[in-house]
C-alpha cells in the first residue's frame, strides 16, 4: 500500500522534473538530455521485445535506420510535413518489424540473436549502396521538424510567455511528449491480453502455446511495437543530428540500447528511461571528469572510455543486480522499511528452456 502511494507521488514529481529540466541545464547538458529522451523512446520499444516477450534482438539499430531514412526521404526529398513523416517513420519501421518478426517463429533464443545481428550488417550494406536514399558512405542531411507554427530548424527559438526555448529544447519537449505516450502505452500493454500473451511467451513458450496463447501473434506483435518505437526514435535522432551516415546505425548502437534496458531494468516501465539516462549520458558525464583528457590530446579517448564503461555496466548489473536500477531502487526501499518483508518479486525471469542445456 505504502509502495503504491510512493509511486503515485513519484510520478508527478518525476514528470514535473522532466518538464522543468531544460531551464536548469547548460546548452551542452541540454543536448545530452535531448539525446537521452529521444533514445529512451527506442529503448522503450526494445523493452517490449526483450523485456516483455523475451526475444533477444541485436537488430534495433536497423529499425532506427528504417525510421531515420523514411523521415529523410519523405521530409526532405518530398517536402512532407513532420506531422506526417514522424508517424510514417514508425509505420515503415513497423512494417520491417513485421517482416523480421516471423523469423522469431522459427528461430529461438540465441539463433534469433545471431540472425538479428546479421540483419544489422545487411541493412548497413543496403544503405551504403543506395546513395539515392542514404547519400552513400558520405551520409546525407536530415530534415528539421517543422509542424505548423513550430519550426525546429537551426537558429530558431520559440517564445512562450517570457520563456525562450531553443532548438534543443524544442526537440527535448517533442521527444518528451512522444516518450510519455510510449511509456504509457508500454505500461498499459502489460495489462492487456496481447501484453500478457507476450509475458507468457517469455516465461515459457511451449506452456503458453498449450494454454492457447497465439505465440506467433505475440512475437510478431512485440517486433512490430518495438520496431515502430525504434523508427520514431531513429527519425527524431537523425533529424536532431541533421546529418548522419549509414555506418552510425551499427551493432554498437544496438548494444547501447540493450545496455540501456539491462541497466534500467528489463520488463519494467521505468527501466528504459533510467537506463537511457545512464547509458546515453555517459559520454558527456565522462567528458566532464577531470582525469579524462581532451579529445585529440592523446591518452584514452572519450569514445573508448564510454564503450568500456557501458560494457562493464552490462556485466556488473547482470552479475550483481539483474533487475537493473529499478531492482536496486526496490532494494533500497525495502532497506528503508526494515520491518517489512523484502519484496522478492522478480521484475524479470527469462526462462527459455529451449536453449537450456539438456
Amino acid at each position, binding site marked *: 500500500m505504502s509502495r503504491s502511494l510512493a509511486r503515485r507521488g513519484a510520478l508527478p514529481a518525476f514528470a514535473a522534473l522532466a518538464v522543468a529540466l531544460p531551464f536548469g541545464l547548460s546548452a551542452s547538458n541540454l543536448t545530452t538530455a535531448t539525446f537521452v529522451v529521444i533514445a529512451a523512446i527506442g529503448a522503450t520499444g526494445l523493452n517490449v521485445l526483450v523485456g516483455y516477450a*523475451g526475444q*533477444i534482438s541485436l537488430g534495433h539499430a536497423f529499425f532506427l535506420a528504417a525510421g531515420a531514412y523514411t523521415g529523410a526521404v519523405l521530409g526532405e526529398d518530398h517536402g512532407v510535413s513532420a506531422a506526417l513523416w514522424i508517424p510514417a517513420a514508425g509505420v515503415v519501421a513497423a512494417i520491417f518489424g513485421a517482416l523480421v518478426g516471423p*523469423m522469431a517463429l*522459427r*528461430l*529461438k*533464443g*540465441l*539463433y534469433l*540473436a*545471431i*540472425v538479428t*545481428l*546479421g*540483419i544489422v*550488417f*545487411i541493412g548497413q*550494406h*543496403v544503405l*551504403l*549502396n543506395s546513395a539515392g536514399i542514404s547519400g552513400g558512405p558520405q551520409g546525407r542531411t536530415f530534415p528539421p521538424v517543422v509542424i505548423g507554427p513550430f519550426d525546429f530548424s537551426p537558429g530558431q527559438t520559440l517564445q512562450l510567455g517570457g520563456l525562450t526555448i531553443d532548438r534543443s529544447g524544442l526537440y527535448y519537449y517533442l521527444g518528451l511528449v512522444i516518450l510519455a505516450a510510449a511509456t504509457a502505452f508500454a505500461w498499459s500493454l502489460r495489462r492487456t491480453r496481447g501484453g500478457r500473451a507476450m509475458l507468457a511467451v517469455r516465461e515459457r513458450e*511451449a*506452456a503458453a502455446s*498449450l494454454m492457447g496463447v497465439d505465440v506467433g501473434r505475440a512475437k510478431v506483435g512485440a517486433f512490430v511495437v518495438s520496431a515502430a518505437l525504434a523508427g520514431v526514435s531513429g527519425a527524431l535522432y537523425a533529424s536532431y543530428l541533421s546529418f548522419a551516415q549509414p555506418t552510425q546505425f551499427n*551493432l*554498437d548502437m544496438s*548494444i547501447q540500447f*540493450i*545496455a540501456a534496458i*539491462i541497466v534500467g531494468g528489463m520488463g519494467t516501465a521505468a527501466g528504459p528511461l533510467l537506463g537511457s539516462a545512464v547509458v546515453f549520458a555517459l559520454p558527456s558525464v565522462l567528458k566532464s571528469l577531470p582525469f579524462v583528457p581532451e579529445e585529440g590530446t592523446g591518452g*584514452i*579517448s572519450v*569514445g*573508448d*572510455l*564510454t*564503450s*568500456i564503461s*557501458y*560494457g*562493464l*555496466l*552490462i*556485466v556488473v548489473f*547482470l*552479475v550483481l543486480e*539483474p533487475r537493473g536500477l529499478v531492482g536496486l531502487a526496490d532494494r533500497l526501499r525495502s532497506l528503508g522499511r526494515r520491518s517489512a518483508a523484502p519484496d522478492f518479486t522478480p521484475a524479470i*525471469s*527469462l*526462462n*527459455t*528452456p*529451449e*536453449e*537450456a*542445456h*539438456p
Partner: protein
Amino acid sequence: MTQFLQLLFEGVSLGATYALVALGFVVIYRASGVINFAQGAMLLLGAYLISWMAVDVGLPFGVAVLAAMGALGAFGAGFHRVALRRVVGQPTFVLVMITIGASIAVSAAVEAVFGDNQRLLGDPWGSSTFHVGAITVTWVKFWGIVVAAVALAVYFSFDRFTRWGLAMRATAGDEEATLSAGVPVGRVHALTWALAGAMATLGGLFLAGFPSAPAHGLGDAALRAFPAVVLGGLSSSVGAVAGGVLIGVVEVMTSGYAPSWLGTNFYAVAPYVVMIAILLVRPYGLLGVKPAERL
C-alpha cells in the same frame, strides 16, 4: 579456371580460420549452452598481444604466439571465474548478455591501449608467396590451413581420448548427472573458456595476416564466424568446421564473382545472407538437432 582455383584456395584458407573461431563458439556452447559473443573481442585481443610481443617486446614469433594463446586461455578461464560462475542458474539470456558487455569493454580497451592505427603483425611470412601451377599461394594463407588443421586434430583427439575431453562430452550430455558422478563441472566450463581463448588467438593470427593487419575491424571479421557456427548447428563440432570452410569459400567467391548490382563489399555480408537463407529452411543448422523439451 585459374581464378576459380585461386579463389577456392583463398576461401579454404579463410574458412579454416573461421573454423577455428567457430569451434571456439561450439566448445563453450556444448558445455554450458552459452554463445560467447566476446569471441570476436578475444580474437582481437589475441592478435594485438601477438603483435605487441613479437614487434614491441621482440620475442621470437612462435614464442609470441604461444604466449598469447596462454594469455587468452587464462583470460577466458578468468572471465568465466569472475563473471559467469556468479550467475550459474540464471537464464541463458543473462549469460549471453554478459558476454556481449564483455565484448564491448574488451575491444574498446584494446583500442584505448594500442590506439586505432593498424599495427605490424610481426609474422615471419609477410607477403611472401610461392606458386603451384598458375595459383599464387601466400605463405601466411598456406600456414593458416596447416595450423588450423593441426589445431583441429589436437582438439578432436583431446576431446576423444583424454579424461578432460570425456568430462567435456559428459557435461555436454547431462550436466547434473556429470556433477553427481564427481566431475568438477565448474572447472570443465573454465577449461572450455580457456580452449576458446586459445583458438580465438590462432584465428586472430591468421585473420590479421597479409594482406590484412592487426586493426580494429578484426572483431567484425570474427563476427562472420557466427554464420559458420549457425550453419553447422551450435552443438556440432564437425558442423562448425564444415560451416567455417563453407562460409570462407562463400565469402571469397562472392568477392570475386558477385555482380555489381549487389553493391560494393557485398562479400562482407554474403555470410549473413547465406545464414539467414539456410536458417529459414533448417532452424537448427545443417547438422544441429532440435532439442526436446520437457514440460
